[in-house]
């Protein structure tokens, strides 16, 4: 599932790098607060461990073999931030040193497997195992299901990334410039392999490891179990916040799909488009063939900085869409962050992250 | 004279196990002390407490008259000089060799302690030469033999020229030649102002590396005396699980008495 260089266009890679960097940055901040300087040896050794797990050629039902990712057990033992970093480092070494996965696509690979994978694994594990005792069988099942879901979520995102390439990036004659298969081929092709092999491999190793740890070293399961040493349930607000981020990022990535829709959305016409539309609609009321005077006057009142969602200097429509999406989200973020800190300051308290 | 280290009733528990029980002792500057005990007797824990890496669960530890606490070690003005003066060589060299190459390993400590580049480079070269590691300077740790790893581990602390050397099993798992090299090195420091505290379960080197022996059993101090006294106390050694008695034969005669085995010798 490690995407090599050349499968994704530079703009796709760029956007996913930005997404990955956001994930890395917030993970490091969170970990440093909790673990301080212990982060370095803990994440490094765990990354080495994930690397080794990725090398296991696991026998699967049906007589085949598959490779696991190790992202689920990382999320269960270290929590999502630790898992994001550990997996990213393992992926980085695989890309750089072993040529497994590209350099331009490292951001994409980390986004799909390390970030989305960790979050889905963690969220599903917590949801399914909620309230169960540290050594209960439900945790084993939760780990296995979480692993299955995480790998397939990562595969789905990758499939979408592949699938939008031919539509957005092709030359004049219609030759796809990067991954050549559209969504309707890319998604089933990717998912079949992961729903059957990789997903099961991850489920097997995650469930198996949790079962082993329950007997041999259950302390390692405690950190994310929601059961603190004295029995109190832990907080679970942070994962949902990050999940929100991920959803936003995904929707941003999907914005260029809008180009697929032909024509202009109903009611969003410019004056010229309006005359055209109403003129072609057979209607008893022919008075609507001219544009209302008020509409005409006000239509030039405000010229958007990015008309048609593409800044003038950007030639590619799809990249323009992506840029606009990022810009829009960024603006919203800044405004809401500013509002939040203003509100907190006026309350006289320091805002905590 | 203030003792360099003073422990008063130090206890250490973790995970429900008591690793150290009411250990009290004084170590003076220039002492050469051997901590002997079977595996699990608390030797490593004691060394780590002396190096400020673990805090005692109960009791107090004093270094050069100051009480060593976690808070004190948070302060740069104490911690940096302390880390230079006191050095610990871990039992497992893989733990201590976490840098990409031998050179980086030896340079790590001076770098973290803020030495200037020139000072650092010259001192690292000096240390590499002293430990005969110059040819291995660019080797990654996984390509080193056990003896070489131990020498690098030693070099990585000797580069600081520390006052106190805490050695955890310095000769364990080494071939005889590497073992004798390490013992020679420790003997070189005899009479210098260096304080050397070695933890070992290998009784045959104790006389060479120490003037005083502390026997630990199940986290408690069983005895403290010069080496000859300890080594001749059969009962004590048996109790501390440092020697064993079983039936064996010499020259065709079968008998049984306390003795210790070493790699190649069998002594009575």
């Amino acid at each position, binding site marked *: 599932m490690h995407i090599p260089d*050349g499968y994704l266009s530079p703009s796709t890679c760029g956007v996913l790098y930005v997404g990955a960097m956001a994930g890395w940055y917030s993970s490091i901040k969170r970990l440093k607060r909790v673990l301080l300087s212990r982060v370095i040896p803990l*994440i490094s050794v765990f990354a080495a461990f994930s690397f080794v797990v990725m090398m296991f050629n696991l026998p699967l039902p049906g007589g085949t073999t598959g490779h696991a990712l190790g992202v689920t057990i990382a999320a269960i033992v270290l929590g999502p931030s630790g898992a994001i970093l550990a997996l990213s480092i393992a992926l980085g070494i695989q890309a*750089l040193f072993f040529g497994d996965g590209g350099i331009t696509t490292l951001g994409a690979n980390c986004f799909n497997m390390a970030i989305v994978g960790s979050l889905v694994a963690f969220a599903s594990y917590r949801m399914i195992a909620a309230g169960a005792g540290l050594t209960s069988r439900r945790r084993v099942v939760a780990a296995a299901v979480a692993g299955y879901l995480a790998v397939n979520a990562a595969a789905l995102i990758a499939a979408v990334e592949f699938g939008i390439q031919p539509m957005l990036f092709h030359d004049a004659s219609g030759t796809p410039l990067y991954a050549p298969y559209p969504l309707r081929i890319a998604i089933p092709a990717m998912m079949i392999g992961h729903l059957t092999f990789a997903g099961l491999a991850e489920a097997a190793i995650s469930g198996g490891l949790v079962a082993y740890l329950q007997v041999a070293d259950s302390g390692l399961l405690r950190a994310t179990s929601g059961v603190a040493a004295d029995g109190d349930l832990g907080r679970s607000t942070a994962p949902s916040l990050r999940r929100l981020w991920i959803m936003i990022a995904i929707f941003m990535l999907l914005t260029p799909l809008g180009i697929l829709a032909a024509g202009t959305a109903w009611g969003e016409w410019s004056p010229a488009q309006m005359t055209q539309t109403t003129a072609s609609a057979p209607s008893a009321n022919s008075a609507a063939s001219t544009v209302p005077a008020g509409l005409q006057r006000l239509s030039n009142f405000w010229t958007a900085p990015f008309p048609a969602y593409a800044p003038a200097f950007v030639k590619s429509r799809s990249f323009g869409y992506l840029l606009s999406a990022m810009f829009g989200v960024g603006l919203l973020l800044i405004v809401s962050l500013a509002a939040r800190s203003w509100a907190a300051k006026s309350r006289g308290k320091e805002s905590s992250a | 004279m203030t003792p360099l280290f003073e422990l008063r009733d130090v206890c250490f528990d973790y995970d429900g196990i008591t690793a150290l029980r009411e250990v009290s002792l004084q170590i003076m500057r220039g002492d050469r002390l051997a901590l002997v005990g079977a595996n699990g007797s608390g030797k490593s824990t004691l060394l780590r407490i002396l190096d400020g890496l673990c805090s005692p669960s109960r009791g107090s530890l004093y270094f050069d008259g100051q009480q060593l606490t976690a808070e004190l070690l948070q302060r740069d003005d104490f911690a940096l000089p302390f880390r230079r003066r006191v050095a610990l060589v871990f039992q497992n060299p893989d733990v201590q060799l*976490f840098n990409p190459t031998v050179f980086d390993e030896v340079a790590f400590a001076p770098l973290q302690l803020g030495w200037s580049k020139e000072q650092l480079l010259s001192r690292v070269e000096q240390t590499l030469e002293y430990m005969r590691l110059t040819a291995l300077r660019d080797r990654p740790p996984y390509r080193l033999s056990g003896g070489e790893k131990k020498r690098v581990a030693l070099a990585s602390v000797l580069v600081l020229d520390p006052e106190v050397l805490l050695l955890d099993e310095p000769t364990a798992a080494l071939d005889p030649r590497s073992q004798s090299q390490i013992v020679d090195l420790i003997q070189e420091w005899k009479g210098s102002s260096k304080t050397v505290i070695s933890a070992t379960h290998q009784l045959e080197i104790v006389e060479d590396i120490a003037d005083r022996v502390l026997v630990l059993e199940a986290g408690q101090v069983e005895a403290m005396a010069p080496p000859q006294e300890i080594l001749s106390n059969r009962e004590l050694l048996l109790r501390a699980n440092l020697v064993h008695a079983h039936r064996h034969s010499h020259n065709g005669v079968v008998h049984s008495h306390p003795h210790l085995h070493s790699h190649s010798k069998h002594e009575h």
Partner: protein
Amino acid sequence: MSRSFLESTTLGFGRALTRAMLSEETARERGLLQSLDPRVRVLGLFALVLAVTLSHKLVVVAALLAMSVVMAVLSRVTLFTLAKRVWLIVLGFTGVIALPALFLTPGRPVAALGGLVITSQGLHTAALLILRVETAVTLTTLLVLCTPWAHVLKALRALRLPKEAIVMMAMTYRYLFLLVETANQMFESRRSRTVGVLRPEEQRRVAARTAGVLLSKSFALSNDVYMAMQSRGFRGDVQVLSHWRLTMWDWVGLLSFLFAGSLAVWMGR
């Protein structure tokens, strides 16, 4: 099948180790790439990978591949090594993926193969994909073969990557081989105690148990390493050493890389 799990995994371990060995040997040779400052190597080869991704023309990517081959030969990397370690593997993986594109891409038909029609667009896109991947992997492999890992990381540091990331990558790499060896030993001892064929569930249990033991050991190791770091003065803000000087030759090299990359992008747009 039973032995295949333990065997194939240990084979994978062995491959990782041989790759590291090969990299160290080649890095010591005296060739073109080895003569350049590691930072120039990293920047230059990354710039070329970017150029590969940015070019839209087949002929430009092919030219970049040719350039990589020339650099390889001048850096004492044999074509055989490249073929074995890069080209055949990429062909096996990306080649298989690109094959259906010959038939599935809509466009102008140029040939027919037993009922299936190959379009020129299909040919073009498959060729472009395969060539791109081959070239990019060749370039990254060259970088790693000609540069000791420690230098790669230091070069990345000099290029302003955050030092925590660099230190973590260095430590991960270092302990990778230790864990691989530990896992290998566990597998070896298991194999020597295995009589006959293990059922798949048993194999999975062996895998889980090995991973579990490895996990516990990893944790203990990370705790001990942390103590070892603290003992030598690490207080959270890790310091790294850098001691490279750029010579005239390095500047020439860097400019050549950037020129070639820019030319490729411009001609391939």
